[in-house]
């Protein structure tokens, strides 16, 4: 699929996908992920500044995927979750290092850098973030 195979489209997102770089609004203190160019709450009063996400959060909901899209077929069954980060933003990612039947809503998780998927024909390997359970929650 063209929108996934362009190298530029992969490189452009490296700061977010590899390093969790994003933006926040200094006017209201809200954190965003992915980065926003202006704050939807403050609009013209937005004061956008860079910040790096904590990578720690908890599972808000999850599913075990049995019918995958192209590039993910070899991973089934895999867990997809919506994670709420400590500082507020929510994001969607795979859970790893956990058995599907052990996943719970509210479970504390942390982000790690992982291989996400592979394109079949031209061999690009996509990397990004997944989350795994925090065994002893850090404060």
């Amino acid at each position, binding site marked *: 699929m063209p929108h996934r195979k362009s190298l530029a489209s992969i490189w452009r997102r490296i700061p977010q996908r590899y390093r969790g770089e994003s933006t926040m609004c200094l006017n209201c203190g809200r954190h965003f992920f992915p980065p926003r160019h202006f704050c939807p709450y403050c609009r013209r009063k937005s004061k956008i500044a860079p910040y790096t996400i904590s990578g720690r959060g908890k599972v808000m909901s999850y599913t075990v995927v049995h019918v995958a899209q192209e590039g993910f077929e070899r991973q089934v069954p895999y867990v997809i979750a*919506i994670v709420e980060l400590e500082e507020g933003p929510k994001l969607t990612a795979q859970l790893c290092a956990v058995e599907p039947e052990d996943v719970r809503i509210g479970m504390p998780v942390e982000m790690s850098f992982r291989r996400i998927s592979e394109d079949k024909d031209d061999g690009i390997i996509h990397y990004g973030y997944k989350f795994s359970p925090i065994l002893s929650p850090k404060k």
Partner: protein
Amino acid sequence: MGNVAVIGAGMTKFGELWDKGLEDLIAEAGAKAVNDANIDGEDIQAIYGGNMSAGRFIGQEHIGALIADAIGLTPIPSTRVEAACASGGLALREAYLAVKSGTYDVVVAGGVEKMTDVYSEQVTQTLGGAGDQQWEVFNGVTFPSLYAMMARRHMHDYGTTEEQMAAVAVKNHSNGSKNPYAQFPFKVTLEQVMSSSKVAEPLKLLDCSPITDGAAVVILASEKFARKLPQEPIWIIGSAHTTDTLALHDRKSLTSIEATRLAGRQAMKQAGVTPKDIDLAEVHDCFTIAEIMAMEDLGFSKRGEGGKDVESGKFNLNSELSVNTSGGLKSCGHPVGATGIKQAVEVTWQLRGEAGKRQVDDAKVGLTHNVGGSGATAVVHIFSKEVD
């Protein structure tokens, strides 16, 4: 501003239609609607056509002109409208606004999707485009997995069960078994739904709407034009369109579609009705959990009680509120760009008393509800036999 009427309705059978291309489908539905309206082609002044992704399904763009060409109506203006699975509902909305504004007296609102010319993995990929490619799909999200996460959270917060979700499929297949236009016009049992293969837990194959080819068309007209026709018009008394964040994770809630809640409220306010006044509703059951949430968001069920209500039979044909008499997306089928218009066709037939074995007794007011993606677009319309 004057009232807007539905003066004609028509649709193709929904299904895997190997012998029909996109242009055949829209031409068939268009001809049926024009004949039904008792008008001539030259009366029509503009076309609004809902289509999600002909570019990816059949490699064809420029669908506005294609529709005008296929139904022999060039050189009138023809606009393609896209809002993922709500493309049809939004085409109806744009057509409604065009008449309501006084710009046109007679317009076509159509919807068409040809989905079965590509393999199902490509359909999965394309439907994933209704979500957020960069921040959902990139990470392995499939379209069913988004609704699965809503279902999981609904179960967690309200105790909704997989059996209650399955009850939606059983009800809609029962209705669809009475609809000759349905893709799957047969009943299913609770056991069949519960034992169908897993797609994205807790959703199973029979919790999901199918891949479908089909087209549907309604003709809208100004009150002045509609009153000149021999048939009784059906009136659009409420119309609303709302948006929300593209990605599910950015929403305020995972158990409610805010866009539906707001669109429902706006449309009912405009129409001057409450949920109690509505006799039938065609709602967006792309997955069984979606119908449960729609019942809550539109005010037909208390928050968290949509599952119990469907299980109790409250939404069965000719009970308190008849929901998805056509069979819904589940049994009638879901050609994504056509679904929103099919809902309007079904409600028009119901309000005219032409719905055959699935007729709702004494139906006076009907509602349609069409959702794009996991809830980033919602479109609600309210139809009535009478108008002020």
